[in-house]
């Protein structure tokens, strides 16, 4: 065990998978000689060479399209979209081709590929470097969407994504890259896709989150404890397939649930989690399921005051959690 940053864990995960399996390769903008804009693949070009760490043109449809073609032919590509905001040009490849490939071929072909995308805001990234895309892609059957919140989960889930037979959209919160540190187990440490995890036990209310919001929720749980409120924190880790059993278990245990995400509110992940609880755990509820999310505005603004107004943070989560506790 050693304490590592979120981005170190991801780099290590890619390195170990590339060392383990020669069919794994990396493709994306500046991922090679430059080591990626965030230095996620720093050193891998030197170690594995230009055949396995490929600098692509500035064309996301090409990055994903190449990955699809390689995957069909038995390779295990890791395609990097430099910022999740840039994924739009590749949507046709992802939705129309990658997500449906297995279904279209009646299971004759799988697409074992990973699309890595740094997402989320709070980094003064403004309109083109801050957005959340999980709700958009979670709506598409055939795609898996993963959003780890800790270094150990980031490494473990990345390994699981590389080894998965189907396309996985792997979301790395860019504010978490160097902010979030944690113990990463030695060895393989694969974390199964589709399994949420209780990151803190509690009995009075449940906070459900993923990605960067997990860090904030844990902070809030600590503050609530000082007020005598015992909060359970459930880290979804995988958004799709979502871990219904874990969501229902915590909802039934506490009867009060607050779902937190940074993505827009309308038709967001919180709405889905809320519906799952209403449909299956209504009799256990002691309060309406509450949501704390980013607002429904076109994008995260650059103006720092407005950016803060957009981003959920520990203070806002705490206020909402207190409202729920008092209900």
């Amino acid at each position, binding site marked *: 065990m050693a304490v590592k940053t979120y981005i170190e864990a991801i780099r290590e995960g890619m390195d170990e998978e590339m060392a383990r399996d020669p069919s794994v390769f990396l493709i994306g903008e500046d991922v090679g000689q430059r080591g990626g804009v965030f230095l996620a693949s720093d050193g891998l070009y030197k170690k594995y060479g230009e055949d396995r760490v490929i600098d692509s043109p500035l064309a996301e449809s090409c990055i994903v399209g190449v990955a699809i073609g390689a995957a069909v032919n038995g390779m295990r590509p890791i395609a990097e979209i430099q910022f999740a905001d840039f994924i739009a040009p590749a949507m046709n490849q992802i939705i129309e081709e990658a997500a449906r490939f297995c279904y279209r071929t009646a299971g004759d072909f799988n697409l074992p590929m990973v699309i890595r995308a740094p997402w989320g805001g709070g980094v003064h990234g403004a309109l083109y470097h801050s957005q959340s895309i999980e709700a958009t892609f979670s709506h598409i059957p055939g795609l898996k969407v993963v959003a780890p919140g800790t270094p150990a989960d980031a490494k473990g889930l990345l390994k699981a994504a590389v080894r998965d037979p189907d396309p996985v959209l792997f979301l790395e919160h860019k504010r978490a890259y160097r902010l979030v540190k944690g113990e990463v187990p030695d060895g393989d440490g694969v974390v199964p896709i589709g399994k949420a995890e209780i990151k803190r036990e509690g009995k009075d209310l449940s906070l459900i989150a993923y990605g960067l919001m997990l860090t904030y929720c844990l902070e809030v749980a600590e503050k609530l404890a000082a007020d005598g409120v015992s909060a359970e924190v459930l880290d979804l880790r995988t958004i799709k397939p979502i871990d219904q059993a874990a969501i229902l278990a915590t909802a039934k245990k506490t*009867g009060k649930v607050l779902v937190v995400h940074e993505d827009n509110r309308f038709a967001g992940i919180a709405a889905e989690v809320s519906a799952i609880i209403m449909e299956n755990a209504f009799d*256990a*509820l002691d309060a309406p399921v509450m949501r704390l999310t980013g607002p429904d505005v076109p994008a995260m603004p650059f103006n720092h005051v407005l950016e803060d107004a957009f981003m959920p943070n520990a203070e806002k989560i705490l206020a909402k959690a207190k409202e729920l506790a008092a209900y």
Partner: protein
Amino acid sequence: MASVKMPQLGESITEGTISKWLKQPGDQVKKYEGLVEVITDKVNAEIPAPLAGVLKEIKVKEGTTVTVGTEIAVIEESVAAAPTPTIPRERGREPQPVAQESAPAVAAPMPGEALGGGSTESRTRLSPAVRALIEEHHITDAELGRIQGSGVGGRISKKDIEDFVGRRAQPVAANGEQRQAVAEAPAVPGAETTVPLTPMRRAIASNMLKSKQTIPHAWTVAEVDMTNVVRFRQQVKDSFKQREGVDLTFVPIIVKAVVEGLKAVPVLNASWSDDGVVLHKDINIGVAVSVEDGLIVPVVHQADRMSIAGLAKSIDDLARRARATKLTIPDVQAATFTVNNPGTFGTILSYSIIAPPQAGILAMDAIVKRPVVLDGDAIAIRSMMNLCLSFDHRVLDGVSAARFLQGVRRWLEGFSEQVPLY
């Protein structure tokens, strides 16, 4: 209709007793006019009417104690005092604001009523989790009525039910009546009487219990030669009384000495908290006064800014008002240290209990004449007094406590005509 609730008459006060209704149902009341007298464990207060109108209903009888926030009366708001939308309509000439168009249906609700109405609705709206628990534990409607909702607007939450079930499960028989019967059965029938607990008795009981349960008390005594003070007081007490109209007792002199002691050892003028020892800037001295059915401790605020004469007047005033039950809330709050005078009843060693959140209490014991060995081995008859200090050992140690007592003792023993009274 607006409901009048038992107000919070001080930070630590949780209940009040209705002592006298100043208005009867049907009476007209003006806004801020005295409506009811309330006794709490600290003070008596007259509660003014929150609005003008007619007292419709008294909900709590005289002599009954209820918790803060309980509805005690209902006032029907008078038409003249707060114009309902019908009046401008009758006048006709005045142009009506658009917003009032819909007002007649609402019938001008008062804030109090809006709250009250909401709470009734919230109480009866049970969440699925609460309903499931009610069924599981066979909770009757009567039992449900007794549960105090802790949620928004008095909503009964899942936790409230769980707590109730926990309490109910405590006696094996699970039967409230049986429990009561056991508790009330006297050992020898007819040989005992139970004196009902006054709010003051309850407050003293809970404060003393809390103090002994949370504060590790330490105790120390200093013997003080009061001869100089006694002589001085003998000389000036008549002229002082004539001039000032109050007696010059030993209490203001001791309080002055205590203030000097606290200035020298500020850590005793402090409170324990988990974040650290809170040192108080002001020196506010509580002076225990025994009253008819208990004890009350009014406070001389900023005693460090007063002369002995000023302290004498202030303490006299507080003691008088305490016995006449005319103290106000600020009179009994924010003491940082307490002085107690059991010596007037002849005690020689007193182990007082600290009043939280203070860090100490000093008892003045009886001044008695005793043979004392003086410097130079002469034996003389001196007026001696024990000063007994109880202190919170979390806040300070014996050394500081002893330094404080030594300071007080030296100040008193060094007393002479040169010490200014004013």
